[in-house]
């Protein structure tokens, strides 16, 4: 195997989720390993932006006593408060990371959420 094909194979491996391959040809053998941990593997191309929970806790669309107004298809401005997460006595706001349209709401009012859990998906404008 020449260097060129090695490069090609490595490139190809990076486009998959393979971490390691071994190639045998008669007496000769070659093993290739690439760093394909899920963190480094981010080949998805999509413009849609997830909005993740800033904390573990209970999600609320609005502060206590206020009405929820958020609906799918609504346009939001970057920094607009989409809801809050209550962790013990702490209230953490969930701001919109970009200007855009709310495509998916994947959380219900009063639902327990984890840190980093996607709550909304926004199509940026």
């Amino acid at each position, binding site marked *: 195997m020449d260097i060129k094909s090695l490069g090609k194979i490595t490139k190809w491996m990076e486009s998959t989720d393979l971490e390691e391959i071994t190639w045998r040809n008669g007496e000769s053998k070659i093993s290739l390993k690439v760093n394909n941990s899920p963190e480094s593997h981010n080949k998805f191309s999509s413009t849609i932006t997830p909005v993740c929970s800033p904390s573990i806790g209970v999600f609320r669309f609005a502060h206590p006593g206020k009405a929820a107004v958020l609906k799918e298809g609504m346009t939001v401005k970057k920094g607009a408060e989409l809801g809050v997460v209550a962790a*013990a006595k702490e209230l953490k706001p969930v701001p919109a990371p970009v200007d855009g349209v709310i495509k998916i709401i994947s959380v219900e009012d009063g639902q327990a959420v*984890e840190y980093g859990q996607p709550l909304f998906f926004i199509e940026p404008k």
Partner: protein
Amino acid sequence: MFKKILVANRGEIAIRVIRTLKEMGIRSVAVYSEADRACLHVREADEAVCIGPAMARESYLHIPAVISAAKVTGAEAIHPGYGFLSENPVFSAACVENGIVFIGPSPRAIEMLGHKSSARKIAVKGGIPVTPGTRDCVTKDYLKEAEKIGFPIMIKAAAGGGGKGIRIVREKEKLNHEFEMASSEAKAAFSNGDVYFEKYIDCPRHVEVQFARDSMGNAIAFPERDCSIQRRHQKLLEESPSPAVNQKLRGRLEEAAISLADTAGYVGVGTVEFLMDREKNFYFMEVNTRLQVEHPVTETITRTDLVREQVLIAAGEKLSLSRARASAFDGHAIEHRINAEDFSRNFAPSVGRIEEWIVPGGPGIRLDTHMYHGYTLPIYYDSMLAKLIVWGPDRAAAIARSRRALGEFRVGGLSTTIDVHKMIVDSPEFQTGDVDTGFMERLLKSRQ
């Protein structure tokens, strides 16, 4: 009894606690940071929730996140493990406030015993020997004060801490000079020139006693652990019983621990640490109000489960062991802390992926670890890979077994301290049991 308990920790100690919960038929909840998704404790628990980013102060140390995790999962109690929030009175109070049982002593007990001077007062009240010293700052008659204690003495800055502002005086001729130096140093470093005297213990051993006390006031103590093998105040190897303690002295050590627990009205499992001099006098050092890293050596020689006792006490039940049962033991146990450190480079931390993980087994071996082949060690937390605990019918047999087990242990991908432990067990000084807290420094120097 509790139906579900949250374990507010990570790695090997989280797994250790989860194991007992499984055996007791209690459901377990693991918490993890973003850097710990692949950590083994997450898989071992019945449920797991992500509580924050990699930095500990935003996840494992963030009180609202941990309390909230218990609330959303419906856990009735929290086991803190060691480190992180285990000795934080604010956290233990937050648990109480939120109707969650903290598996450990009350916030008041943590505060009282966590503070050096108030802990010392409790020890004195309980009739436990403390290092002789002047109670207040020394301003005049200092030769008289020093002679009352007996040389060598330490001059300590009242406002100091962490080993700063300490001078050792071995003979009275040097006292004048050293006193002036210590006082002006203290003034420069802490803007407070006050100093006090304490007895300096030459080549001490570090000996500690595990105790437990339930809410009905039943108290038990276990045979002592010897933790003299340390490097820069970090324990490397612990054993039980101590080769320097006979049955009579053991009885006195256990008595002291129980007296301390009773005096403090302590409810929970804890450890009292002593310094022991060459004449086998022991002096109170401090109390740890949590489970300790080295608890398995006690469990091994007494065939008990300390986590189980912690859970029973927290649930308001009676200790499952009598006093006689807790002090009875069989054989000898040694714990080796295997860290991801490169000792040829002054114990620099080593990080990376575990490429090979072949562990020792066979008779008398216990391995507490969260490692597995392919695991990548995160850089955010401590460097301990595993605790290898060996048991033998006597100390010599345990040492022989340690040597065999360390030889079987093979780790690839990063540097470990396995070879340091091989050096320790091969040293004649360790084999005779004649060690003190200066042992590691001497051993490492002799190898250079």
